[in-house]
């Protein structure tokens, strides 16, 4: 049944996937096992996405299926059992840019792949990212921006993290339609991603998580 759930998700059979998950949960299957079956599906989809075999509709639909199933699993979870997370990631679209399509997909993919993600939203000032990083203590900060106006704020975040002495414990990844190696060098970020799955791959590498994507 768990394998069937994984397959239903990877085959984009939404109704079937949700129905199987419901059945499993109602039959007393451990909710964590159900979530793990979903995560397995997300790993397959992530690999297919990186290989150019599936695209944004599949990422969004799979993310949505995972969300629906997680919500159904939640009431079944025992309070003392916490879902193990890979690591903490802060994601933000930088100051001046209000685009969130790419950022939202990255957040959903990191979440589905077991990261503890804090999404600060769009048009986020440098100071807010740095202050949040002090409290949340993430391993990774991901900065998003669609327009060229995002380059300078990204650079400013990297510089501010450096100044506050936070940089040695935090890796910075950047992404967006116009981000390339030229911009990575300009901003001082550790890496740039060409797509949402790159963010998962980098975050797993940096948090020592099992690298089962890509």
């Amino acid at each position, binding site marked *: 049944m768990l394998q069937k759930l994984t397959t239903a998700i990877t085959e984009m059979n939404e109704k079937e996937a949700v129905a199987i998950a419901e059945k499993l949960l109602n039959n007393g299957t451990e909710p964590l096992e159900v979530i793990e079956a979903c995560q397995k599906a997300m790993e397959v989809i992530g690999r297919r996405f990186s290989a150019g075999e599936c695209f944004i509709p599949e990422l*969004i639909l799979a993310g949505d299926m995972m969300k629906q199933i997680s919500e159904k699993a939640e009431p079944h979870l025992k309070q003392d059992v916490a879902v193990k997370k890979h690591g903490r990631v802060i994601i933000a679209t930088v100051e*001046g840019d*209000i685009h969130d399509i790419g950022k939202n997909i990255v957040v959903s993919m990191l979440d589905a792949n077991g990261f503890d993600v804090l999404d600060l939203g769009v048009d986020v000032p440098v100071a807010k990212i740095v202050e949040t990083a002090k409290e949340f203590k993430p391993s990774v900060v991901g900065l998003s921006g669609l*327009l*060229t*106006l995002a380059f300078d704020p990204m650079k400013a975040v990297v510089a501010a993290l450096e100044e506050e002495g936070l940089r040695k414990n935090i890796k910075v990844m950047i992404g967006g*339609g116009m981000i390339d190696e*030229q911009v990575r060098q300009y901003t001082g970020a550790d890496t740039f991603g060409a797509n949402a799955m790159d963010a998962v791959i980098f975050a797993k590498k940096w948090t020592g998580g099992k690298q089962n994507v890509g």
Partner: protein
Amino acid sequence: MSDKTETELLYEAREKRFNDAVSLKKPDRVPIVSLTNFFLTRYGGITDKEAMYDYSKMREAWLASIKKLDWDFVPGIFTFFPGKVLEIMDSKALKWAGHGLGENILYQYIDKEYMLADEYDEFLDDPNGFVVTKFLPRVCGIFKPLGELLPIPWLASGYTAPVLGATLAGLPHYAEMMEKLIEAGKEMTAYNIHQAQLVQDAKEMGYPMTAGSYSVAPFDSISDFFRGLNGTMLDIYRRPDKLKAAVDYVAPHVTQFAINYAAMTGNPRVVIPLHRGSGAFMSDEQFAEFYWPGLKRLLLDLIDAGLTPIPFFEGDMTPRLKYLAQLPPGKVAGHFDIVDKKKFKEILGDKMVFWGDVPGSLLVTGKPQQIKDYVKALIDMFADTGGLIIDGAVEGVPPESKPENVEAMTEAVREYGVYQ
């Protein structure tokens, strides 16, 4: 001897240079034509906020920059909006300089579901009614009273239309809406006068306008304006037939709009910003099923109407080149962002001009020599057919570009781009 003035001859020569490149005939020199916007006003010394609120400053800055850069065409002005009009209309879908964004920040569109998933039937059953009573109040605050309108056929009676119309107009919130509309109309007219003057001034300086009309791909019309990215991507799986029906419905309208607009301005070039069909967004099969039929029809209909479509491709178009090869050669001015140029040469080299694609990252953070090298490489690659026009990539020349880099791009065309 021609009795044309020197600027008239310059105007014709510039237009010919562009047209030759589009039809893959070697012009005298590689044209440089940019689809930029706020770079020109910043280069002319004013902020984005000033450019949106002070129409004469905008016009002066625009023309001063054009004179200094001496590109072949003047960038189109559709991508400008008068800030005051947006304020009066209470635009909900945009944020702009001084209104939700800093004074020197490009305006931005808020991607959202302006039509909900369960509203497809209502839209398809009565698109006009839906747009008037649901869509408009969601994107413009002043249209809120329209949300109360009963189905429009309710007004259709020769007996009662006068009194029903007058009754509506007499209601305080409708009266207020109409007063604001009149105010917005006056402001828009003031703006339009400046814009018409800009076009005229440019013409007198010998520069044609890049485009005189615009349109959108039918799929993008539904995705950008109605359902949002998330909405349409889920619709592909959850309600594909409804999505296709909505795309089919808007298809003839986006074409007609572009044709009418071009007739009004007398300029045959139609710029079409394209969003969701890129290789990053959907699979080839999804593109073939949902996106391409509408875009192809739009492009062919515009060509049939004697117009030159300028599809402005955003994102990676490499996987779609084989579809573009179905279009008649030399008729479409494709503006590219990310594309495998070797494959472009193979598949489209004898069919479509390559217009682009100096990366925004280089223009903003690079050095003049890098820009020159990039332009030279483009010329080396594409000049054999004459099918090359130089511009930046996805934002044309982005607002944050370093002036010296844009100047280097311009110089490089003059230095390396003269055909023997």
